[in-house]
């Protein structure tokens, strides 16, 4: 921009000096000249847009250039990205070996995201009422574009999530990753496992078909037998429990699996448990980082190197 100004100033000066031209022609000349100048500026600017990474817009979004792969940029790519910042910038070279990690924790989290996404879409087509629930599923299966695919994917991702959670747990045991300092995070993981099962179970009733109805009936009938809190459990009657005030009544919002149970399981399924699970997940991931990333593969320790127990 800077160099253009003196040129224009010069141009004006020469025009004043010559002075012989009429006012009209000088106006045309002025317009033409500034037009030319504007064109030059535009060409310059367009040239600069050819490299979008140099634009203000780009730089405001992405802080790191991804075309240079020097160590600093690679680290910044992780550290300055909100979605990736849970990772450390560098990890143990063996920690990326699939046979060690099995990747099951990550897959479980990805499935949770898939389920949230497909679940939100399903919520657009579903009413948790006795009159509508089953019809909504039929509508979803036969009329909604890709509705069947959506429902299938939600169901199978849920089943898969149960499997991957179990396998994740199995791997953590086999590598002894629950040991100090990760004992607490293992406990958080157990809670997440239970929440996963509860999420799956509360979703089972929502289609309001025979399968879900009887599965939930069987499941909640067990709650009737809770010691002290259930009407048919040990010491329940002695403590004044009836089918209308016991723990099963609280779960179902009634003494039978009916419209209140449908609404309750809908709210637990779509809002209550996912919220709680998200909080526990945040803690789970945070603790992984704070406890030094994944546990291994660590160098093997030998029996002779066992330290004596600390007495406090």
């Amino acid at each position, binding site marked *: 921009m800077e160099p253009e100004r003196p040129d224009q100033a010069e141009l004006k000066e020469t025009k004043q000096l010559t002075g012989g031209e009429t006012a009209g022609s000088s106006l045309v000349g002025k317009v033409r000249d500034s037009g030319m100048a504007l064109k030059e500026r535009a060409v310059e600017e367009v040239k600069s847009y050819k490299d979008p990474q140099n634009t203000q817009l780009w730089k405001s979004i992405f802080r790191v250039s991804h075309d240079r792969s020097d160590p600093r940029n690679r680290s910044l790519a992780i550290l300055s990205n909100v979605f990736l910042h849970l*990772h450390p910038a560098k990890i143990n070279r063996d920690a990326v070996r699939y046979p060690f990690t099995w990747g099951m924790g990550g897959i479980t989290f990805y499935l949770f995201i898939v389920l949230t996404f497909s679940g939100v879409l399903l919520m657009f087509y579903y009413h948790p009422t006795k009159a509508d629930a089953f019809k909504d599923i039929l509508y979803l299966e036969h009329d909604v574009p890709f509705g069947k695919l959506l429902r299938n994917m939600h169901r199978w991702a849920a089943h898969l999530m149960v499997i991957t959670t179990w396998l994740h747990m199995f791997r953590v045991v086999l*590598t002894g990753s629950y040991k100090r300092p990760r004992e607490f995070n293992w406990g958080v993981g157990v809670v997440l496992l239970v929440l996963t099962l509860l999420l799956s179970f509360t979703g089972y009733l929502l289609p309001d078909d025979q399968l879900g109805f009887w599965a939930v009936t069987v499941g909640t009938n067990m709650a009737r037998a809770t010691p002290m809190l259930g009407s048919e459990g040990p010491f329940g009657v002695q403590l004044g429990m009836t089918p209308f005030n016991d723990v099963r009544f609280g779960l179902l919002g009634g003494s039978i699996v009916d419209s209140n149970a449908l609404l309750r399981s809908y709210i637990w399924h779509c809002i209550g448990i996912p919220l709680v699970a998200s909080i526990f997940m945040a803690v789970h991931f945070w603790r992984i980082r704070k406890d030094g990333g994944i546990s291994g593969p660590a160098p093997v320790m030998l029996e002779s190197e066992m330290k004596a127990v600390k007495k406090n």
Partner: protein
Amino acid sequence: MAKRRFNLTKGKLLGLGVLVAVVVLAVLVVEDWQQLWKISSAPDNVPIVAMLFLVPIFTWMGVRQSLANDRLIRELEQDPKLAKTHHRKAEPWRPGWARELHVWPYLVRIEFLVTVIVTVILFVWSITLNAPLEEPANPNLTMNPSKAPWYFLGLQEMLVYFDPWIAGVVMPSLIMVGLMVFPYVDSNPLGNGYYTLRQRRFAVGMFAVGFLQWILLIVIGTFIRGPGWIWFWPGQTWDHNAVVFDKNIDLHDLIATSWIGKTLHLGFLQSNLGKWIFGALVVGGFYIVGALFFHWLMTVDFKRISLRPLRLFPRDPFEQKLLERTSILQYVMFQFFAISVLLAMPVKLILRLGLTIKYVWVTPWFNI
């Protein structure tokens, strides 16, 4: 590098033999293939069929790495000099290699690849298999068999062996709390962050037993329990008119009415107080025997067990050392959960299915 050639080792031969045996057995035993197919192809049962393959595959993957590490550990223990210089991993290593990698791109690209693969699997699965949808819910028409979702079938199967308050409430709570307690009762400092069986045989063994029990109960619930929750072997036709006469008997009745009970005049066992005390003694005795059993399992050196000369309690010095590190609280906690869940479950299963015993402890308030 030389090309890897397929060697028929003993292990592979054994695996092949087992496979052939399973196929032959299936052909001989299965009388109703259609029934078997109907159960295993039910869309909601597909995950458990998948588990039947996934669990062995991943177990194999873990065991293979454990054995590699165990070989290394043995080698290093025999050669303290090597232990000082070796990089202490079974994974390959050369001097000059960077010990750490950048997460971008070496981890992020794996994560991306995995999400793509999982997405593809989900799409294929969702396109080829429809989520089940039965008739609208009808409280007047009971489904038979009326089954919980597959991951809860273990609990439902437990209802056969225990009253609902144990199977549905106490057992799940014990399993949850037991799992949370697991890291705190494992006093072994070795095996933190690498696969090993040699250094952690008891902890891994206990978890594996629990995990397999859970899967086994689910498999029984899925493949074996038919209408009326009656036991049908895989491949047997589900007979909706089948009736099983329950001849289950309580333990105190069994003893009081048996020949021994009659000659020793044990009729008082059938009185209210008699069966209460008898049951308490049986359950108490079970906990004592169970504790002795787990203590033996914890410390025994299996390789030195022999019958001639009779040696049933040889101690493993390493396991003994671990036991010394274990606090009394840790030990008691472990014993409680191990006996109440890991041992009680299979013992009651055998008592119920093998000896048709219903309760071992009958009281006016609860039965076990």
